[in-house]
């Protein structure tokens, strides 16, 4: 087993190395693109297999670099454990799809952007991700974290000549470094100032920390990992950076990179710290519920397809955190089976979100590729022009809307069940939070369904709304295969929870007092929660649905139901000739919900009516403008930026342009330093 793992790790590093090297040497030539994709594909497959074998293996640590190569020059240490295995699966799965997809998607970039840079980075990013979840000391983790952040930054900047890209990149790099600073501080506290301490040593050290220190670590972890995961209010970079990146990069970022925040939170809070007081769980649950609701509410108002998806990432991170927060709460009361249920729900949703969000971003990329716009109001009718992409997008949309029997439903069901178990909490304040969380989660999933009816209905159905959409073409074969991989994953993860759930339960078993033997989640194809609070089986549901879908038309045939079908014009209240302008728009679709939640959105409206000069009963043109500034941009970041700017203006006075003045500064600093050294 150890040998196999070592081989897999080598294949992983070698594959990604080959891909990066190929891109570097061959650049934008087709052969270069091929080598990039090949190397990336090999690396991703290795990561996938490594993750699965870590989860399936009997031993806890199938691969341990430390034992074999201790004391290497940079004190980089790696190990693969089951929790890391979960995230290796995520990296491998999305990485594989993205690589295959990217092979022909990047063809359009030839000559316009540097394919050399893109090819190197698209291999370096997943490599750093994979090594990060294998890291076994703080230094290795932080190093890989920084490589991940920087390579993602350069990837976001790929289309740097497009308006807004650089600005988004700046937001991203600022937020990510805020997080990095918090994480460095956190690890210094956690490891007792020794960044080279192994995770095992940290685990021992964290247990004896003072409560104040532990709380400090918790807040730093929440800010550091939260800024990467995109929790509200640290999410601002997410809807800016994800849309401007190339679509396969967006898929990688939304599917995998932000999940590293989740990985970090679970690793630090559960594994290294061994759980904490109840209010930690309360904070995580609260942040999760707010992120989920706000994320989906702002997604509803977006008409840029990729921004919409980016806001949904905020939402889904929220759902994951609801599960993890509930787990933390139960853990603090020693209710370990329910704690395991919450965390397993969260982790399951992590994998699920990676697969359907990756799929949706890839499909959005195909649309962008074909229709050259991200604006949904200029799409429409694509289901006839790009049937494969439409089908894939539909699968992703149904999965993210938590419709059974797909995967999103399974994980939300688990999270729901964990929350429903909250009635057995002994403290009313904690127990009272559970129904509120249930309400928030239910509202979130309902709104998500509404949002994806909008996204799919407006973008893919009905009549094309623009010339580009009318002449859209289907995605290339490699793009379709890339999407297909994730679509199969969405269906597979939905139909086989009885395999996934026990594995995930094992991945957190033993941490923070969670039972080492996995709780009885399953019996055959049935998923049963601990304490037998509820049970369901998506597998049998799927069988039932398929049987009914097949039987209904057969029965109708047998009963000699009228089968003729005539295609005619759409009924237009007597008016002949339907134009796209008669269709419902995305704005109109979201209007009722905008009015319902008007107190949150506070939309600004501007209506200009151009009347005919003769009579105001004849209107020449009407212009309607409505904008929504998200509440956090309005209330938090704008004042903050204003303050920084004011401060910068003050500092600018120092810079008078006179050389003599600068020399005076130098002398003053020198003198101050000299005096200071005398003093201390």
């Amino acid at each position: 087993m150890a040998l196999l793992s070592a081989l897999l790790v080598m294949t992983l590093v070698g594959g990604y190395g080959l891909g990066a090297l190929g891109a570097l040497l061959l650049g934008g030539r087709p052969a270069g693109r091929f080598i990039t994709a090949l190397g990336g594909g090999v690396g991703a497959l290795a990561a996938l297999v490594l993750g699965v074998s870590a989860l399936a293996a009997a031993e806890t640590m199938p691969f341990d670099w430390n034992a074999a190569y201790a004391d290497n020059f940079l004190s980089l240490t790696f190990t693969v454990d089951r929790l890391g295995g979960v995230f290796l699966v995520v990296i491998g799965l999305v990485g594989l799809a993205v690589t295959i997809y990217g092979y022909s998607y990047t063809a359009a970039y030839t000559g316009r952007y540097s394919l050399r840079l893109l090819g190197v980075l698209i291999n370096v990013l997943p490599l750093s991700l994979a090594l990060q979840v294998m890291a076994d000391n703080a230094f290795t983790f932080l190093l890989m974290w920084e490589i991940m952040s920087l390579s993602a930054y350069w990837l976001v900047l790929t289309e740097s000549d497009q308006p807004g890209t650089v600005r988004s990149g700046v937001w991203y790099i600022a937020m990510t470094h805020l997080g990095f600073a918090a994480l460095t501080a956190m690890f210094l506290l956690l490891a007792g100032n020794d960044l080279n301490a192994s995770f095992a040593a940290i685990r021992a050290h964290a247990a004896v920390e003072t409560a104040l220190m532990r709380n400090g670590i918790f807040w730093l972890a929440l800010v550091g990992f939260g800024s990467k995961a995109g929790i509200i209010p640290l999410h601002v970079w997410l809807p800016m950076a994800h849309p401007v990146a190339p679509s396969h990069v967006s898929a990688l970022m939304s599917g995998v990179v932000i999940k590293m925040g989740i990985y970090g939170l679970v690793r630090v809070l559960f594994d290294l710290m061994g759980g904490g007081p109840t209010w930690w769980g309360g904070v995580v649950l609260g942040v999760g519920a707010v992120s989920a609701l706000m994320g989906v509410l702002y997604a509803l108002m977006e008409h840029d397809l990729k921004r919409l998806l980016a806001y949904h990432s905020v939402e889904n991170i929220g759902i994951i955190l609801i599960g993890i927060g509930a787990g933390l709460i139960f853990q603090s009361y020693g209710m370990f089976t329910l704690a395991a249920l919450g965390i397993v729900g969260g982790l399951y949703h992590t994998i699920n979100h990676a697969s359907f969000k990756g799929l949706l971003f890839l499909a959005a990329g195909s649309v962008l590729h074909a229709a050259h716009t991200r604006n949904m109001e200029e799409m429409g009718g694509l289901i006839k022009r790009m049937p494969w992409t439409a089908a894939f997008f539909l699968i992703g949309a149904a999965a993210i809307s938590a419709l059974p029997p797909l995967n999103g439903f399974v994980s939300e069901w688990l999270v729901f069940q964990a929350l429903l178990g909250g009635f057995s909490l002994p403290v009313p304040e904690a127990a009272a939070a559970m129904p509120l969380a249930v309400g928030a989660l239910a509202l979130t999933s309902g709104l998500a369904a509404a949002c994806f009816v909008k996204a799919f209905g407006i973008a893919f159905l009905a009549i094309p709304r623009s010339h580009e959409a009318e002449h859209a073409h289907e995605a290339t074969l490699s793009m379709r295969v890339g999407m297909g991989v994730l679509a199969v994953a969405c269906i597979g993860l939905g139909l086989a929870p009885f395999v996934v759930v026990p594995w995930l339960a094992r991945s957190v078993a033993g941490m923070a007092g969670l039972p080492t033997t996995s709780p009885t989640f399953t019996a055959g194809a049935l998923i049963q929660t601990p304490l037998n609070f509820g049970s369901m089986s998506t597998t049998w549901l799927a069988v039932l649905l398929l049987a009914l879908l097949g039987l209904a038309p057969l029965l109708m045939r047998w009963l000699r139901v009228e089968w003729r079908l005539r295609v005619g014009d759409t009924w237009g209240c007597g008016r002949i000739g339907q134009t796209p302008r008669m269709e419902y728009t995305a704005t109109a679709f979201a209007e009722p919900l905008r009015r319902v939640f008007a107190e949150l959105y506070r939309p600004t409206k501007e209506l200009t009516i151009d009347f005919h000069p003769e009579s105001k009963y004849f209107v020449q043109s009407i212009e309607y403008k409505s904008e929504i500034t998200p509440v956090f941009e309005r209330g938090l970041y704008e004042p903050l930026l204003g303050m920084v700017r004011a401060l910068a203006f003050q500092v600018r006075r120092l810079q008078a342009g006179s050389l003599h003045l600068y020399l005076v500064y130098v002398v003053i600093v020198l003198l101050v330093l000299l005096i200071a050294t005398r003093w201390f």
Partner: protein
Amino acid sequence: MNTALFAQLVTLSSSVVLLFGITLLWRRSLTAYIDAFRWQSLVLSVLFVLIGYYSNDPELYLVAVFFFALKVIVLPIYLRRLQARVKVVNEIEPYINIATSLILAGLLVLLAYAVTRPLVAVSTLPTRGGLPLAMGLIFVGLLVVVTRKKALTQIVGFLVMENGIALLAALGTYGVPFIIELGVFLDVLMGFLVMQVFVYHIYGTFESIDVNQLSELKH
């Protein structure tokens, strides 16, 4: 009557009393406000009878009769008259929209549960199930007073809050002594009459009973 059934009935009728309080937040017309108050008071007097029957305390029957006379008959009539007198427009304009205030009310009741939790935990009264609901009703009454603009609706809110206090007293102590209860009724009546005078004056000065207008006084 056995204790389990009694406890069940008390909790049930307390819930109904609270629901009538929440009805205020959902309805818009003043007439509906007065109706809801009247029904609420009716259920409350039935509850008094129920408690009196269970605890064999004939004094409570008397309280129930007084309660009925004052809150189901007298006060609603006065309110109607007041409404006719100041020709209030039926539409009530709240400061915060109806959906939000409803959800706020839900949260307040949740808060009431959390606040009264220690009390309920140590209490052995069969009526303890209604205590959080009574507390919730007081909160909801306050919410009505705070978020509604018209002076008349604020009076109804005040009366509903007072009902909450009466409910709390009845549940917590099986009814305070009759003489104290009588004093409370008189206080309520007095308070109501004073407020009535104020409403007339506000109306006389501004030709409206929108209390927003009062802010003009400071200029």
